[in-house]
């Protein structure tokens, strides 16, 4: 019990993220007639054959599985858009804006509504490429975290899944910096009881991570002065 380590190495499981993504809205074209549904999570419908309407992804998938609707792929999931995003992603250090749950949404649609997505194979491989480029960028970003006094990290346009994956590294690295930079660190290490903590944290992660805006006190002060 004593000395239990970090409480939230990775706060959410992949399944839990998917659960959250299933609440995102998507357009469906029903092929049945059904009255409005008054759920705890909101009111949806009514559904009329061939009349497009909005529904949460879980509902869309449930209907799709029973052959009761077709799903319209969201706008960002077109070859044109994705090609643009991929190019921009390659050209810039920044992360391009994509839906917060883009990984989970595309995965769900590929699993359950493959036939409804135009140019499936192309779209799938574009999304894979985008994911790869972004992960590579995340990896590269780690190196720039190194300096002391890093207090906060802005993770602009990072998606839910990406943030969840980098969380254990980023949070631990920042914690370590925070501890090292705080003035009472020396007293703290004298306080023996926190034995194993210091042993397996520390420099091992410190050079590993960062994503792209680092705010150190000096940075912040410089920015303030510049204004």
């Amino acid at each position, binding site marked *: 019990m*004593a000395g239990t380590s970090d409480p939230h190495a990775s706060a959410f499981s992949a399944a839990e993220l998917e659960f959250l993504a299933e609440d995102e809205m998507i357009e469906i074209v029903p092929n049945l007639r059904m009255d409005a549904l008054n759920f705890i*999570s909101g009111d949806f419908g009514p559904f009329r054959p061939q009349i497009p309407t909005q529904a949460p992804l879980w509902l869309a998938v*449930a209907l799709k599985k029973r052959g009761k609707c077709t799903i319209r792929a969201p706008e960002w999931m077109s070859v044109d858009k994705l090609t643009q995003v991929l190019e921009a992603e390659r050209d810039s250090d920044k992360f391009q804006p994509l839906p917060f749950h883009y990984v989970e949404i595309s995965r769900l649609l590929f699993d359950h509504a493959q036939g409804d997505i135009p140019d499936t194979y192309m779209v799938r491989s574009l999304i894979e490429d985008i994911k790869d480029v972004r992960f590579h960028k995340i990896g590269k970003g780690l190196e720039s975290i190194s300096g002391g006094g890093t207090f906060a*990290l802005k993770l602009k346009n990072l998606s839910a899944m990406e943030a969840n994956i980098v969380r254990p590294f*980023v949070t631990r690295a*920042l914690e370590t910096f*925070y501890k090292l930079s705080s003035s009472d660190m020396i007293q703290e290490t004298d306080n023996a009881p926190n034995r194993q903590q210091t042993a397996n944290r520390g420099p091992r992660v410190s050079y590993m991570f960062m994503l792209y805006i680092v705010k150190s006190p000096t940075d*912040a002060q410089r920015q303030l002065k510049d204004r």
Partner: protein
Amino acid sequence: MDSGAGESSAADDYESLMSTTDAELLKSAWRNEKAAPEILNYAADLVQRSRQQIQLMEEMVEDYINDGVDPLTVSLYQIDLDRTMFLLRSYLRTRLQKIEKYVFHIQKTAEEWNRLSKQEQKFASRFAGDIKHHLDQSVLSRLPDQYQSHLRQSAASEEDDMVPEPQLDSYVVCRSKKYLGAYQLDDGGQELINIEADDLYALPYKSIKPLVESGQVDLV
């Protein structure tokens, strides 16, 4: 806090509060509870309301089945019901896990103790008693006198140094629903950070704790 978007925010708050469903609220309570290092305030009213809604919905589904309503419709209501129940259960379970982990700390900190519901307090008391009993029986009673406390390493310790506490300076990933302006990060420093709507930030939990409690920022 120095908020740049001061004037419009009161009206916005009201508006967003009115348009936020219990399902949304439960989801963000669940997320915050999962991501926060310490135990948060028990969302008593929200849990109460969600329970009622679930019960109502269960009765309704029952009626639908008896009335011979289209099985497809029934199954969709059932899915919605299952999703809400999952959220509620997972929320409560996450809290129980935290209580088990930090039970001795929570017990001696009045402020944290008061964040628990009545049932949780009962659980915590019994759990703490059982753990203490177990530690005494299996190990502590066989140790020399000065090492018999389950809270301290030895009688020479000045404070309870065997009680795990939540790490409030650990980092969390958070997201604000709206622009919060320049936010002061730490007690001592002059560091300011501009918190913009819908962007993710990794920040020390204790510096944004008030924002989490007031619902301005969601942990993700």
